[in-house]
């Protein structure tokens, strides 16, 4: 069982465009989850899903220096603390994004049950809801 999830993705956008997209509350809200967020160490952020039955994510910013962003990631009302790190690398015309989500092993036993139950409809709904929301936003423009 993987305890740390790592993802890499190259975007055809400048490093600052990506940095803004992952640190600016308005931008985070547009593509990810409705965010009360500031890229300041110690800031206690909240990510809310636009869908019902999706738990909020809460945490604290641990590091926010261009181009590294780290925060704790806690599913509200569950005790497990995990950590998410975003790192950006300038590739000239593109930007490479590294994402690391560690501490997944903390979701065991009763915590896993609590977490599972807290999602009811499951994350698929939360994400699909977000995609629908984005499509509507785009069409509305």
């Amino acid at each position, binding site marked *: *069982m*993987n305890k740390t*999830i790592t*993802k890499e*993705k190259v*975007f055809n*956008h400048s490093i600052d*465009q*990506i940095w803004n*997209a*992952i640190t600016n509350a308005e*931008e985070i809200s*547009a*593509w*990810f989850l409705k965010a009360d967020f500031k890229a300041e160490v110690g800031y206690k952020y909240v990510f809310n899903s636009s869908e019902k039955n999706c738990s909020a994510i809460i945490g604290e910013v641990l590091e926010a220096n261009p181009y590294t962003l780290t925060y704790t990631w806690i599913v509200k009302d569950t005790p497990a603390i995990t950590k998410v790190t975003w790192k950006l690398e300038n590739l000239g015309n593109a930007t490479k*994004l590294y*994402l690391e*989500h560690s501490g*997944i092993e903390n*979701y*065991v*036993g*009763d915590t*896993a*049950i609590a977490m*599972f*139950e807290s999602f009811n409809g*499951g*994350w698929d709904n939360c*994400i699909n809801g*977000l*995609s629908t929301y*984005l499509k509507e936003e*785009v069409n509305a*423009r």
Partner: protein
Amino acid sequence: MQDNITKLFKAIADPTRRDIFHALVIATSALSITQISNQFLMTRQGVTKHIKILNDAGLVQMKEDGRNRFCFADPKPLKEVNKWMQFYAQFWDDSLDNLDNYLKTKKDA
């Protein structure tokens, strides 16, 4: 589905049950309740209680042989747990795709 996975998590949340399950996995043959209680220095009632929870979760199967009941491990349901634990991997894939779409839309705007 949710009931099943909740039963699975409850079954594997307890360290003694994990140990019993592990003992059954590595055993070369099915074990009786008596053999398990001897190995774990537990009462038959205690073992029976744990086995029932493991059995409900589908992790332990039972077979009757005369007066004895034998237990053997069935690890197949664990795949479900593993699949579920991997859900963050899918979550981040979907989220990064959303980020990509967002940036493309923004660029076009």
